[in-house]
């Protein structure tokens, strides 16, 4: 992958901004379920895209900045602890899953379920009682559903963004080389 530092920084910033907007949009989506902690996790789409298109370091940056800003803007200090733990653990899981041959769907599902798991852990620490783990099965089931949904979004967007990222890059190269070849711009990242 030949991409300049500037491009990488700009793309990471764009993913962070997109993730922040998705976090905000998600505060309006109230799911009709009686278990706390169940949500779609739309913001994870931007983290997955950053992971696939810009690499793990970029995804880490996106997670840290998005979670910090989202808790300052729309949430409480308590939910920052939940979010940062969930974000980091799920990112670690997603990086491992991506390396071990899962597709975007598997990566997304593992991220969602690990996010739920770490939130239950944080809740258990805050409440000081391990009984809270009994709601984890419900959360895990919901996490699979949510993960598949965000995985679908991510896989659709990934193909299109990959194309756009590559095309803009190759257009520059083509201009430099004075060699314009349509359709040759799609090369694997």
């Amino acid at each position, binding site marked *: 992958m030949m991409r300049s530092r500037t491009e990488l920084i700009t793309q990471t910033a764009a993913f962070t901004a997109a993730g922040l907007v998705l976090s905000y949009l998600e505060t309006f989506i109230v799911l009709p379920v009686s278990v*706390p902690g169940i949500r779609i996790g739309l913001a994870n789409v931007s983290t997955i895209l950053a992971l696939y298109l810009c690499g793990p370091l970029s995804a880490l940056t996106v997670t840290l900045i998005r979670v910090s800003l989202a808790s300052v803007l729309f949430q409480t200090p308590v939910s920052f602890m939940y979010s940062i733990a969930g974000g980091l653990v799920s990112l670690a899981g997603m990086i491992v899953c991506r390396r071990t041959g899962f597709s975007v769907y*598997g990566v997304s*599902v593992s991220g969602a379920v690990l996010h739920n798991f770490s939130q239950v852990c944080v809740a258990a620490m805050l*409440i000081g009682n391990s009984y809270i783990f009994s709601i984890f*099965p419900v959360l895990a089931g919901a996490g699979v559903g949510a993960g598949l949904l965000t995985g679908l979004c991510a896989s659709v967007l990934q193909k299109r963004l990959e194309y756009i990222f590559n095309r803009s890059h190759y257009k520059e190269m083509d201009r430099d080389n004075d060699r314009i070849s349509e359709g040759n711009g799609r090369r694997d990242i």
Partner: protein
Amino acid sequence: MNKKDMTLVVTVLAASLLFLIPSVLVTGSGKVYIYVGGDLYGSYDLSEDRSVHLDNDNGISNDIVICDGCVYMKDATCPGKQCVHTGRISRNNQSIVCAPAGILVIIRSEAESGYDAITD
């Protein structure tokens, strides 16, 4: 979706269903335990109607009601009101959590399963 993804999804779903079975079987019986900041505040019979009012050190107050074999958080002064939105619970191991107040309300039935012993 490749084969590995399918395996992951099926495994997680199967595991969570397996863990759910014990808590779904038992309903309407058992005791309600209320924990405040990790310490047991009190335990009440699920079949006995009553209400419990809690005023916490952090300025949040909670109204817990036990009625018709169900428990619910009638009102709370916490910011998110997730505990109130949890609704009624009646089965073994179901819980209502009010994280800002540090309150856990949980139903424990007499019939203990092996899984509970592990999490203790």
